[in-house]
């Protein structure tokens, strides 16, 4: 039975499958080998038997392509034009080093897993790949189409139970690209695509005019707020709405004469959901930061991203399943650091550091970190070579994604980049694998099919497999 070369995936007891099979082969020499008993041993551990650990997900999205080699995968021994200006520092897990400008984050590596070998073939500034796992270059990355596959959050909304009154998917602080190019850009990715608009996220909004400067770095400030339609319009009080609703009920009574009772169940349900969105206090209070301790606000950092992360935490507390928090562009500049990469990061990284570490701390303090998965990712990475403008350009061939919290084996590094953080050296990970990992933590089968507009079944993670090595 030397023909049985298994995959090299590591089983929960630390043996690789190949080693297991080798052990089986040895027992063959003793005459006791048979395939069923060998595989029955695997059944006891069972690849699919672990329940989903994460009740909720907070996805922190650095829009524009973060230079993760200057953040989580530093190469101090690389040549001048590659290594960058920052130094790695030790984290609280021996053997894991991250950037000197992320000192608070470094104290959380015992809860985090760094995946340093993410790459995709879907082209630059294409968030569709990272939100869905669908790695295909698009003719136009500035608009979205109803024929695209659904994002992870939209799949959560799709699976939302009818009795849940809160939406399953909120997207803060606004649609991806809202801060960019006057708001005309709508990066594809966050949407429900062919599942249908009813599974699109509930987007909040923000004021793009509020821009803060941190050490010369422009970031968006202010707070996200509920979109126009989800809060009562100016001049309409709750009382006035109730009065109108009362009138409407009387007019709708006529309806019953017109058709069978059951015909409109679905319509009625949506109307109730809409009304509860307008009148419920859960969402509103999650967005209302006026009563939050100002010191906590400071710890999260007073940026739009920080405020959004805080609201995200409050939404998760209220029971929302999937919250996305995007660090959007102010104007044309953000994580898309074609010029002055390091100068920009000197401002941005301490802010990110504060927000990220405070979020984890806050969640842990509330006992929510064990049931909330926090993912820090970007739509791509940046070139190993520093360009003439001290910037880094687009690069999709290797970058890092950071997982932390529920379901994650803390203190783990998975995959490796080469000496220049240019290409994957070990264990490449696709965006589909990242999505599959998140689905898996949520207890959603990554192979669950959804149907595109032609009726074709498409697995939600597009064939991606969960990275079991970073999962507990």
């Amino acid at each position, binding site marked *: 039975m030397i023909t049985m*070369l298994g995959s090299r995936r590591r089983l929960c007891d630390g043996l690789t499958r190949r080693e297991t099979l080798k052990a089986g082969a040895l027992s063959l020499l003793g005459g006791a080998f048979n395939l069923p008993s060998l595989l029955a041993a695997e059944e006891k551990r069972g690849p699919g038997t672990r329940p989903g650990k994460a009740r909720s997900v907070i996805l922190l999205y650095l829009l524009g392509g973060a230079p993760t080699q200057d953040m989580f995968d530093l190469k101090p021994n690389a040549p001048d034009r590659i290594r960058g200006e920052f130094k790695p520092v030790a984290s609280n897990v021996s053997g894991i080093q991250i950037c000197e400008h992320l000192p608070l984050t470094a104290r959380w590596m015992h809860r985090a897993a760094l995946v340093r070998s993410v790459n995709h073939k879907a082209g630059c500034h294409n968030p569709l790949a990272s939100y869905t796992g669908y790695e295909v270059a698009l003719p136009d990355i500035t608009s979205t189409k109803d024929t695209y596959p659904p994002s992870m959050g939209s799949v959560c909304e799709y699976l939302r139970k009818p009795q849940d009154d809160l939406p399953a998917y909120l997207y803060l602080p606004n649609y991806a690209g809202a801060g960019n190019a006057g708001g005309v850009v709508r990066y594809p990715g966050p949407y429900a695509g062919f599942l249908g608009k009813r599974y699109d996220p509930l987007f909040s909004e923000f004021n793009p005019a509020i821009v803060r400067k941190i050490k010369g770095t422009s970031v968006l400030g202010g707070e996200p707020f509920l979109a126009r339609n989800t809060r009562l319009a100016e001049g309409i009080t709750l009382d006035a709405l109730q009065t109108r609703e009362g009138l409407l009920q009387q007019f709708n009574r006529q309806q019953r004469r017109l058709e069978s009772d059951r015909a409109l169940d679905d319509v009625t349900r949506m109307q109730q959901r809409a009304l509860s969105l307008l009148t419920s206090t859960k969402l509103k209070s999650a967005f209302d930061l006026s009563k939050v301790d100002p010191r906590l606000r400071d710890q999260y950092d007073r940026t739009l991203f920080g405020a959004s992360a805080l609201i995200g935490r409050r939404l998760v507390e209220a029971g929302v399943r999937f919250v996305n928090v995007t660090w959007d562009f102010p104007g044309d500049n953000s994580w898309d650091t074609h010029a002055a990469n390091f100068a920009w990061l000197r401002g941005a990284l301490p802010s990110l550091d504060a927000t990220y570490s405070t979020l984890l701390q806050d969640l842990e303090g509330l006992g929510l970190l064990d049931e909330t998965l926090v993912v820090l990712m970007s739509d791509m990475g940046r070139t190993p070579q520093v360009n003439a403008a001290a910037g880094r350009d687009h690069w999709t061939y290797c970058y890092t994604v950071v997982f932390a919290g529920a379901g994650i084996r803390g203190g783990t590094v998975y995959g490796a980049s080469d000496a220049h953080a240019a290409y994957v050296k070990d264990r490449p990970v696709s965006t589909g694998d990242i999505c599959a990992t998140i689905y898996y933590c949520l207890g959603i089968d990554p192979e669950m099919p959804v149907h595109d507009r032609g009726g074709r079944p498409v697995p939600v993670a597009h064939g991606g497999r969960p990275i079991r090595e970073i999962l507990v």
Partner: protein
Amino acid sequence: MLRSRRLPLPILFADLNRVKGFDKRARNGKWAHSSLCLGLVLAAALPAGALPPGEAEKAAVIGQPVSISVRPAMIRLSGPQAMQQVIVTGRYGDGAERDLTPFCALSAEVPDVVTIGPGGFLQPRKDGRTVLVVQAGPRTARVPVVVTDFGQPQPVSFRQQFIAALGVGGCNQGACHGIPSGRGGFRLSLRGHDPDADYLELTRGVFARRTNPLAPEASLIYHKALGRVPHEGGQRFGADTVAARTMLAWLRQGMPNDPPALPALKSLEIVPGPGVRTPPARWQQLAVLAHFSDGSVRDVTRLTVFSSSDDGIARVDGKGLVELRQSGEAAILCRYLDVIQCLRLTYLEPRQDFHWPNPPEHNYVDRHVFAKLKMLNIVPSDLCTDQEFLRRVFLDLCGILPTPEEVRNFLADRRPDRRARLIDRLLERPEFADFWAFKWLDLLRCNRLTIQIKGSHVYRQWLRGHVERNTPWSQVARELLTASGSTFTNPPANYYRGAYNNRAPVAVRDPQTLAEMTAQVFFGVRMQCAQCHNHPYERWTQDDYHHMAAWFAQVKAKADPVQPGSPPPPYPWQLREDAIVIYSARAGEVTQPRTGKVMTPKLLGVPASPLPPGKDRRAVLADLVTAADNPFFARATVNRLWFHLLGKGIVDPPDDFRDSNPPANEALLDALARDFLDHNFDVKHVLRTIVSSRTYQLSAHGNETNQDDERYFSHALVKRKRLPAEVLLDALCTATGVPEKFAGFPLGTRTIQLPDGEVIYTGGRYATWDRHAFLKAFGQPPREASCECEREGDVTVDRVLELKNGAFVRQKIQTPDNRLGKLLARKLPDRDILNELFLATLSRPPLPDEVKAALDHVAKAKVKREAWEDVLWALLNTNEFLLRH
């Protein structure tokens, strides 16, 4: 009784699918099989309903047959793998027939020659002759049985037996190893469409790990299928099943590949044929016979995959036993290898108190609809009121609301033919042409981001002209299919124009897209699945798909030197305003990606005929599409018209014609198609026929027998008739008297009259074209697909919020000189104002309690106008306004 059993089933399935991700691991700690989610039924996984348990009940089903017959009349079992499903039918005094196969007693006169399995399934045991004795109540039948060559080795065919066994196990379906990436590292072609690849995968893949010819029983695939080792899919079949024994026999024989001269599978025959069953005949055993090119016929019942088009009506198990569960019609799909055959079964439970009221028939539509309803014991609803009819027919034919004046006039009209007169008037109104051109433009993808602004204008004008003149629809199809020339000067050429980008400024749609579009628009067939593999639940093959694409292989485009447009703009979303020239080249072929063969043009369902030399392929295609004997075009077109009027196609979805999705009323569809052909593809004639029918004019209010029916048109389907986004916006404008201004169009231009959706120009450096926010929110399709499904009609939270709380509706209500403002300025009595508002919104006068509620509210108010705005708001938010009744 009937009521309580209807409908919940499909709904339950849908709900299960939705929460699957959550509950499945709680259920069994494993990823459950995903096949339910596919909407496809895993035949082997669904147990048929239990047979009646007691002998007494069996005896009741058997009853007192006048005679029984057994098929086949003579059983020959040749070779060790032979098998035979026997079908026993009883005939009764009233002329009815019942399937007695599961209930009768079978025995053989000579023991040991055959094994008689439960359910009348025979397999050989040794060479010899015997007689099968069939005992059903008082009747006995005797069938001679001959077994030969039992000891002769008989090779198991990889393609025709082993792959069929994989199919029976569901191993190669899309949810399992048939997915392109495979499962657990094991990949099969979807439903075995590529046997060569499967042979390699099984005998060589992963160092031939899955099969072991030296110890066949130890083969991994065998263990997995039997569930003897951990398998995410669990046990697929038992060791004593035909599938398991076929698998093992092939492994034991050393995994032979098939000889090249293997006789091809020609067709499947299902025994018995279609028919109507009534209680107590709630069961029907099927036998499936495969006919091969060498003339041989084999029983393949146990190697066939069965599924039902409607499990609520009929369920079928893996052995081909159908259980009929409630009155209705279902198609039983039988798939053996790549051939799918459907059997239509109708089941009728008599309704004791059923009384057919004999409603008058307006025309042949009613004749066919009522015949079906009568057969199914469903009483149609009453005729709708004049109020309902008026609003319904305005919205359905012209996409507009009647004005208060028109409502008053019609309700005052007492002539008996007032409905017919109204229909005739509406069919001649300019709004009719606007509305029906707009519907077709959705499918033809009229969208300036693809065909530029001028293209969208000329495309609309061209089509609207045809609708207005009522050009025979075959002529419109011909103009589209054969169009060449500049997209600005010959509008139908826009059919071929693809989305441009900076890299390919002159873009023509590829032959595959054109094949899909054409099949969907003109044939109502969705072929997308067949691009990469044979269609999994339909008879279209990958070859059919690429044969279809071949019609368009020579369509090419070049820049139009006369209308070159501007230089490429800086951003890909910005328009260039150029025309392109579509032409037919002399060369260009399509190859089948799997076989690499050059495909000849061939139309779905039409025998191949040689192309006349020198003739444009597309001209030949147009001839074939619009030929009077082409079954697809007329049926697809009338079905689409029916869908737009009734809210549901006779085949539904209206662009999903397939054997496994049978029409709700075959005779009706045939009659409409025949009428359409007889009147030279006259669309208006068909529309008039349909809206004149009593069926169209039925009320939405159901009765005891029909309120659960959503299939046979026994009442108006309100749920399916939400106002489309554009019609709703126009209705909000006319109801409030505040028109919407679209940049570049004169005030008063209705949404339906716009050439496409992208009418908002943002301006500035990143200038782009966008759709109206309200329309986008309400599901206006972007016109990127040729599918009716692109229009999202669902009520969503967003939409409700937009109506309750959105700026658009608010602005319409609050505009000072809107309809309300004008009525108040005339200082009319409150009662008259209310009346006008009801006529303008709901197209009817208010009822007494509505008058009371509204006037009480207005009387209490401090600011009168605000109170009236509340009333208007409530009217615009009623289901009655948002839906068409």
